[in-house]
């Protein structure tokens, strides 16, 4: 009985092995197809931006450029017209930088402080406050446009970059607090107690013990906040004026305000330039997505 059973079991194992390999290849093929589908627009954008207008008019959308030219990129950066001015994206790109960097830094720092207080310095009503901040994450931004415009006006910050920074910091706090609170809540409270016995105060404990522990969550928060703030259009278009507009608004103006022949290559180059910083943040910071930095610090 066993003599017969053994070879047949072997054969069936063999069969299932081949089946598994086939399945694996099918999976890869499918994944490649999806990847192709997702990369297609990027491919079209990059190739189009490297073609001359002449070639765009005569060639096919998906063909490679016959002659690579960076003219469109140069125009997009420093010559494209946004309405009446023709300075390209450069000044607006700088606006976005001056806006996004402080806004990300401040909202991350305040989020860390909030999370630290809510998770580690429990006080009466801490949960209520946390719930309210969470609620803030789900408020549609359209709702706050008018009240915020009024507040900015009263503060004398209407149409300025500090005003935009203020708006982004306020509306980022919900998420950044949530991130840090959830991270810090898993850190045993005994750390705070030990530091208190050692004589450290509120800020000392935050600065010397909690912040150094927070690299992974800081990276997550920075990526999230930078993407949100850099890509924001609604606040940018609502609370800025000529000269303080962020890059997203300028991109829109470049694409929508051209007259005559549509310069697809310039539009594409401008869109890529506007998207580059977020891409860069992902590539640089993604490396630091290290988990378990606290692993093993507590419990044996």
């Amino acid at each position, binding site marked *: 009985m066993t003599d017969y059973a053994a070879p047949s079991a072997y054969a069936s194992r063999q069969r299932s092995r081949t089946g598994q390999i086939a399945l694996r290849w099918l999976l890869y093929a499918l994944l490649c197809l999806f990847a192709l589908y997702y990369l297609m627009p990027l491919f079209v954008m990059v190739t189009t931006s490297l073609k001359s207008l002449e070639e765009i008019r005569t060639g096919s959308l998906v063909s490679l450029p016959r002659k690579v030219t960076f003219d469109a990129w140069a125009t997009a950066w420093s010559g494209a017209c946004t309405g009446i001015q023709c300075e390209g994206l450069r000044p607006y790109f700088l606006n976005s930088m001056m806006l996004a960097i402080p806004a990300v830094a401040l909202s991350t720092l305040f989020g860390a402080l909030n999370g630290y207080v809510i998770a580690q310095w429990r006080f009466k009503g801490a949960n209520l406050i946390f719930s309210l901040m969470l609620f803030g994450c789900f408020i549609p931004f359209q709702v706050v446009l008018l009240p915020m415009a009024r507040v900015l006006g009263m503060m004398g910050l209407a149409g300025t970059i500090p005003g935009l920074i203020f708006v982004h910091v306020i509306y980022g706090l919900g998420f950044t607090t949530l991130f840090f609170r959830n991270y810090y809540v898993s850190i045993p409270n005994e750390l705070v107690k030990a530091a208190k016995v050692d004589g450290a105060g509120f800020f000392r404990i935050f600065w010397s013990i909690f912040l150094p522990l927070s690299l992974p969550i800081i990276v997550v928060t920075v990526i999230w906040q930078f993407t949100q703030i850099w890509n924001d259009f609604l606040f940018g278009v609502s609370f800025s004026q000529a000269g303080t507009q962020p890059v997203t608004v300028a991109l829109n103006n470049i694409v929508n305000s051209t007259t005559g022949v549509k310069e697809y290559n310039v539009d594409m180059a401008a869109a890529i330039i506007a998207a580059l910083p977020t891409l860069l943040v992902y590539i640089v910071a993604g490396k630091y997505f290290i988990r378990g930095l606290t692993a*093993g610090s507590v419990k*044996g």
Partner: protein
Amino acid sequence: MTPILDIKNLCKSYGPVEILKDINVSIVPGDFLVLVGPSGCGKSTLLNCIAGLEPISGGDLFIGGRNMTNVSPKDRDIAMVFQSYALYPTMSVAKNITFGMKVRGVDQATQKAKLAEVSKQLQIEPLLNRRPGQLSGGQRQRVAMGRALVRDPKLFLFDEPLSNLDAKLRVEMRTEIKRLHHDLGASMVYVTHDQIEAMTLASKIVVMKGGVIQQIGTPAEIYNRPQNLFVADFMGSPAMNLIPAKAQKNGNGTKIKIDREAGGPLVLTDTNNPDLPEDVILGLRPEDIAEAGYRTGEHVQTANCLVDIVEPAGADTFVVSQLGGKEVTARLHAETKATPGQPLEFAFDLGKVSYFEPESGQRVS
């Protein structure tokens, strides 16, 4: 001698929930006080109150003669070792140990000297540049102790420091803590739920239950003269036998009647305790019940009982039989001939007996 720690009428409540009720404890310098009790009895809360990490709702707390009731932890001149060690994960061992001194502004040279001294004492010199995450449980425990030692405080506080270690290491570290206490002559307060730790380490034990102190005393007092049924049952392993019995005055002795499985009630005569209530619970530790012939003394009395279970444990053999409707464990010598289902003559040492009131659970004599 002025007490190093003096707790007077301490109360602690969270809203309407009373966690600690009217706690009064005092220890002199050099004492090793152990707070012991089942989980949820308030022992850790009491320790946190001593450390100043939890505000107290009533009463006063003195450390070294100074009223510390409203003083912040850093000014209480204490050091604390936590259950999870609570080492700062991003700092090296050396930085962990010197962090407190750095915060207090102690100069670099003193920091260095102290660090060298303590790391030598605890034999953690090779570990100084490592992170806590790279240490084993026992090493982390040592570092946590080092952090407490450098402070040279008036009072050391330990919050179940050994409960995360495996059994073998726990015994080693227990001995080490005992040695440390002996060498330093320091005053310590130690929280544990392990009654063996309490017995081996303490010079004074506080047994707690439900936020109320059940008994304060030396390990010998707690072990030999438990104040109530809870203490009797909680301290000692295997636990004290608590046997329902009837007492009857008889001349200058008292007849103690205990129900037995076969052969009518077992009758012992106690000549020490003349005034017992009629219903009592007789408490006798397993080691005070021996095989007849192996225990002699003025108060030893023998009687036959049916053996239920025999559990050899190497050094001793535990024999379980039924008395007064309860399982009664006797600690016999290893070579005993006791066999399950057979009667055996036991020797009861009534010189070591405790009696409790069944209703209140309090000790009667």
